[in-house]
């Protein structure tokens, strides 16, 4: 492919501008919050950005394949525990989790490598179990993924020699996940997830989502295509899990179960699961909403009302409303591009009716 | 139904557009069926024959156009409402309920207009029309052969005493003598005065028995009129070619 084709393929106004916009929005918000220098808001931003990485990894498989991937949050958990086991010093592990297998206690890697190792462990687990599951679609597929989540959860919550079992796993030491690290990783993941979606692999996976049989008859091996995305998605989830555990510093298996999954699912569906922009804006919107509601809960609590948990009710109702009236989310399953922004701006209205223009273009093509 | 005059068609479809997602399958179909008529719809695969039946029966929602049945505008009605109003569709591929017995299949066919006494009387009648059903009365529908299933599907359509019986490819995938049986049966139903709208791949047979016929092509009506007048007006070989190709799904 020569340079000219390459640039043409990037197609800034209709395609690659998405990445630029999403990163710009994220970095601008981050820089502003850094400038504000209020720990409470920095904390919300860091947490939200870790969630964003999780949702992006979630989108990579679920959004492109159309398979409800319940097991995803399990890989987040695997990455969280695995990276913590790698990063903690043997002395600290012997102190915090005395039940742990000796060979795990002796492992030690510097933090950045531990993060990557955690993601790799998640990918390896996914790679080992996923192949036979990728054949399954529709309700059987969703049920299998759900069953897998429960298997992972039982292992995480009961395997005392690895995860400290049902007890809290405390990492000890200092908070290794920093504001800028999370931001940097998020930027990389946005690029990665977007490039995947636009790559030929991503295109094939989307084809299987839209019409499994047609995709198959045109020679796409949908099991292989799904498999690659599933493992990659588990890797991003594992990475996000590692960032999470080194930020929160104490985790239990329950942190990676249905409540967390529900949150990820709400963010992705409300944003629009079929696009990277959907994952981005869904996370942004739900994070803002939950923080706002949490303030209301706190206020009510001060005035004597116990209202904790009402945020989830509101999110759940909004989720159902979206599923009924706007099943493709706020983005409608489309990406935010330079073209879509031009369409929204009234200045650009000289081209009168962009939708019909588009249609004409398509007809010509 | 006093507002129906003698000449008004029992079914009148006007300028019907139906789409599967973004793909338009019917481009403004108009057709009508009068009481007591046997009307055939012919055409090659993908011409929109099955689609029009599904739209009339309420399974597919038309994008625009109207459907009048027994003097009422029934556009957008649900399948169960239309059934109650006197429409029955014998679906393509028979769609027998495989684990239900023949009896249960028939009982279900009468669901919308079920009357125990009439059901018992009809059974007697059906057993003479379809002797095989009597033999297999307590067997699961899935165990019947293709031809037997087709008999059952037609009986299941008839048992609600429809004012309009629509049949979608009743001869599809059957052996030649089974096909003969099915067409004899359709003739018998016609002689009993039942109004029939028939969609068939086997154009030759369908045109032989029809009072009037529609020839579909690419979601449009190519020809409408008496079968015997068709010869000079359209390229008849294309119609018959449709009859040679069997078995594939539309």
């Amino acid at each position: 492919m020569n340079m000219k084709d390459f640039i043409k393929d990037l197609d800034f106004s209709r395609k690659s501008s998405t990445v630029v916009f999403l990163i710009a929005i994220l970095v601008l918000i981050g820089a502003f919050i850094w400038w504000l220098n209020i720990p409470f808001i920095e904390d919300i931003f860091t947490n939200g950005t870790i969630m964003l990485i999780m949702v992006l990894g979630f989108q990579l498989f679920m959004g492109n394949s159309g398979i409800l991937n319940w097991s995803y949050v399990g890989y987040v958990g695997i990455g969280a525990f695995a990276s913590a086991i790698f990063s903690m010093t043997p002395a600290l592990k012997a102190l915090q989790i005395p039940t742990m297998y000796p060979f795990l206690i002796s492992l030690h890697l510097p933090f950045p490598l531990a993060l990557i190792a955690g993601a790799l462990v998640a990918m390896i687990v996914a790679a080992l179990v996923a192949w036979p599951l990728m054949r399954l679609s529709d309700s059987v597929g969703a049920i299998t993924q759900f069953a897998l989540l429960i298997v992972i959860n039982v292992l995480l919550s009961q395997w005392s020699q690895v995860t400290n079992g049902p007890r809290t796993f405390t990492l000890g030491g200092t908070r290794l996940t920093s504001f800028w690290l999370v931001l940097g990783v998020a930027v990389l993941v946005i690029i990665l997830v977007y490039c995947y979606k636009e790559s030929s692999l991503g295109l094939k996976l989307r084809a299987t989502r839209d019409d499994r049989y047609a995709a198959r008859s045109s020679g796409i091996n949908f099991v292989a295509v799904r498999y690659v995305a599933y493992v990659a998605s588990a890797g991003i989830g594992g990475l996000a899990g590692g960032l999470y555990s080194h930020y929160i510093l104490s985790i239990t298996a329950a942190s990676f179960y249905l409540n967390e999954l529900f949150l990820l699912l709400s963010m992705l569906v409300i944003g629009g699961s079929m696009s990277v922009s959907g994952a981005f804006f869904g996370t942004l919107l739900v994070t803002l909403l939950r923080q706002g509601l949490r303030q209301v809960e706190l206020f009510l609590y001060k005035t004597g009302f116990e209202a904790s948990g009402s945020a989830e009710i509101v999110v759940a109702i909004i989720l159902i409303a979206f599923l009924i009236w706007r099943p493709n989310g706020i983005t409608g399953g489309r990406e935010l591009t330079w073209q879509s922004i031009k369409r929204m701006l009234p200045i650009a209205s000289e081209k009168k009716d962009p939708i019909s223009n588009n249609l004409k273009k398509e007809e010509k093509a | 139904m006093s507002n129906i005059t003698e000449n008004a068609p029992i079914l009148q479809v006007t300028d019907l557009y139906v789409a599967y997602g973004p793909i338009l399958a019917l481009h403004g179909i108009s057709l009508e069926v009068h009481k007591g008529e046997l009307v055939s719809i012919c055409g090659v695969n993908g011409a929109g024959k099955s689609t029009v039946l599904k739209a009339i029966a309420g399974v597919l929602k038309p994008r625009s156009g109207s459907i009048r049945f027994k003097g009422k505008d029934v556009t957008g009605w649900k399948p169960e409402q239309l059934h109650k109003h006197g429409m029955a569709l014998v679906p393509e591929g028979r769609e027998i309920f495989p684990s239900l017995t023949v009896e249960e299949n028939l009982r279900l066919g009468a669901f919308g207009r079920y009357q125990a006494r009439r059901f018992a009387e009809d059974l007697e009648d059906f057993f003479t029309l379809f002797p095989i059903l009597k033999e297999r009365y307590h067997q699961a529908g899935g165990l019947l052969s293709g031809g037997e299933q087709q008999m059952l599907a037609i009986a299941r359509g008839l048992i609600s005493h429809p004012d309009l019986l629509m049949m979608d490819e009743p001869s599809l995938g059957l052996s030649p003598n089974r096909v003969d049986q099915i067409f004899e049966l359709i003739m018998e139903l016609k002689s009993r005065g039942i109004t029939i709208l028939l969609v068939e791949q086997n154009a030759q047979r369908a045109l032989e028995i029809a009072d009037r016929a529609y020839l579909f092509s690419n979601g449009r009506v190519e020809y409408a009129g008496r079968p015997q007048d068709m010869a000079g007006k359209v390229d008849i070989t294309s119609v018959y070619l449709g009859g040679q190709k069997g078995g594939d799904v539309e």
Partner: protein
Amino acid sequence: MNAQIFFEFAINVLSMGSLYALIALGLVFVFGICKLINFAYGEFITVGAYVLYFLGVFTSLPWPLVFLIGILSSVAVGYLSELVAFRPFRGRSLDALLVTSFAVSVILQRLFQLGISPRSKAVPVPAFFNMNIELFGLTTPLRNLLIIAITVVLLLILTVIMKYTVLGVAMRGASENFVTARLMGVPANLVISVAFIISGFLAGVVAIFWTARTGSAEPLMGMSPLLIGFIAVVIGGMHSLPGAVVGGYVYALIANILSLTLPTSLLSFRDAVMFAIVIAFLVLKPEGLLRGNYQEERVG
């Protein structure tokens, strides 16, 4: 004393299996018609349990009436959730339905936490439930025998309804081929509502015997029966009502055997083993132990 151990094992399997069979039936009724694994099903049971708690603690109504009202509340929640949350999804994607049922489940759980209490409440149980019965030389609480008897009766009633009433035939037809059933005049809304009502009814019955065993009601209690039903339904093949019943008993059998044979250190992994079995079933034998309604078509 081998015989006694065997009888104890058998009674355990049969009483647990009966409860599990009812749980599985409640799930499969909705799954059969809507192809929806209803995540909110566990909460139908929770509602019944809380009503038993309220009536048992704050009123002196006779037990039969308490049970009846408990069952009716589960029915009401089942029907209402169908009406409000699931009906707008008629004809839409399965995933949307599944996510909605998940959301409904979250909403109900949070409402219990907010409106009642996050902590568990002791549910009173009629004394005769725990009365010990002497049978084949071993003693067992009456409730264990009661659940077996009630399950048998309910299965008989349901069989009669499904086999001999027009509505039952319509339900079975609709679960095999929904569109064709509608073409026969079976109203979509009717069969789906009835499926949810039966599902709610079974949840209400389950609530009685579940709380009799655990003695308490709490917001998240619906999860365990949901998972049990889920396993049993998969083992039974997902599409067939008899399959779900068999799945319930088979699950009780496997769970009891695992409890007896797994070393204590591994006992906490029992659920992982059960769900690994579920995955194996889905991958290798998706039609379950009994062949469901899917018979091969004979061409002739």
